[in-house]
């Protein structure tokens, strides 16, 4: 009997995912209302549940794809995968108004360059504090502080060893996860309540998944604006880190 249920769920992976995520959302919004009187956004709690599920999945299977490594939940991998994520982000642009985007133009671009540069510098400084000296390692870890894609892409481009690359991914993952959690906390303080600040936030923080989840947990209407700048961040990082920033690091160290 159990086997039949298991098979039914596994064969319809995506549908199982819709059902499970729907239940997780229901519980999260229920808790947000009952425990925190709506002060903590329901989607922030739901994202926290997602991260906990990912940890459980990772511990049980030792895989790299969180909960979706468990066969029963593989559909969640499809539902939360890049294709549908991008498809839905683009759909949120339907609500965005274009003149806001044009008005913010210059500071959005400034934010992007600043965002990649300052993240790299902090990554390198902290790597130095932990005793790393070799420019290749410093650059790869600095790239990880930009995003968990820029780290490995630059690391492989400049020939870093695999444990340094894994470390850069870890830094990028922690950055993305802390953006998901801290954005609602900092939102009031940095006046993250209008399209302009959202675009600058997307440019400075930049990790697409972190920005998207952070804004979703703060104010859904801002998601397209933050995503607009954030989508260029990783590309810019992959461009600058293994080239100019690597040369700079080599000269200094």
């Amino acid at each position, binding site marked *: 009997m159990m086997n039949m249920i298991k098979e039914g769920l596994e064969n319809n992976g995506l549908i199982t995912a819709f059902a499970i995520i729907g239940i997780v959302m229901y519980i999260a919004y229920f808790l947000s209302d009952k425990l925190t009187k709506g002060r903590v956004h329901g989607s922030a709690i739901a994202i926290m549940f997602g991260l906990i599920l990912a940890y459980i999945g*990772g511990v049980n299977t030792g895989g790299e794809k969180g909960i979706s490594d468990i066969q029963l939940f593989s559909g969640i991998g499809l539902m939360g995968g890049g294709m549908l994520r991008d498809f839905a982000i683009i759909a949120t642009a*339907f609500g965005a108004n274009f003149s806001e985007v044009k008005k913010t133009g210059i500071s959005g671009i*400034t934010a992007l360059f600043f965002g990649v540069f300052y993240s790299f510098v902090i990554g390198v400084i902290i790597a130095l504090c932990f005793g790393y000296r070799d420019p290749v390692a410093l650059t790869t870890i600095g790239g990880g502080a930009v995003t968990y894609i820029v780290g490995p892409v630059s690391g492989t481009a400049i020939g870093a060893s695999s444990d340094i690359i894994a470390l850069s991914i*870890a830094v990028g993952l922690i950055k993305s996860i802390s953006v998901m959690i801290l954005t609602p906390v900092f939102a009031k303080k940095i006046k993250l309540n209008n399209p302009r600040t959202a675009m600058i936030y997307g440019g400075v923080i930049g990790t697409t998944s972190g920005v998207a989840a952070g804004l979703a947990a703060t104010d859904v209407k801002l998601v397209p604006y933050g995503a607009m700048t954030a989508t260029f961040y990783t590309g810019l990082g992959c461009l600058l880190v293994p080239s100019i920033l690597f040369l700079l690091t080599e000269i200094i160290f």
Partner: protein
Amino acid sequence: MIIFGVALLSICMLIGVIVGDALGGLMGVEANVGGVGVSMLLLVLAVDYLKKKNKLQVKSEEGIAFWGGIYIPIVVAMSAQQNVVAALDGGGMALLAGVVVVVVGFLSIPFISRIGEKAKVKEQEIELSILPKEQIK
């Protein structure tokens, strides 16, 4: 019909992704550069155009609005497949670097938006200004 909205959204995404890959290739970078950004601009322009010609019926809009509405659950599913175990394995350095870079980022946002503000005022004064000086410093 609902499928018209979903099809419009799909076409915008496909064009954007291809352009993003091409941009990445041009720059010799393995990542897709701005594909989602291009798709969003395309969608906003297409919807603006169709609305002016009132060719976009409400039913078609619902096709797009549905995917916009399903966005947060997709983000929850995305967070459920992050490699949280590896993140925590990164140890003290990864934890510190990851959190510090985020906090510094948040604190710098008000300054960046102020730079933008000053630049705009200056631009209105000087007709043909390129990038105002204080931004280059």
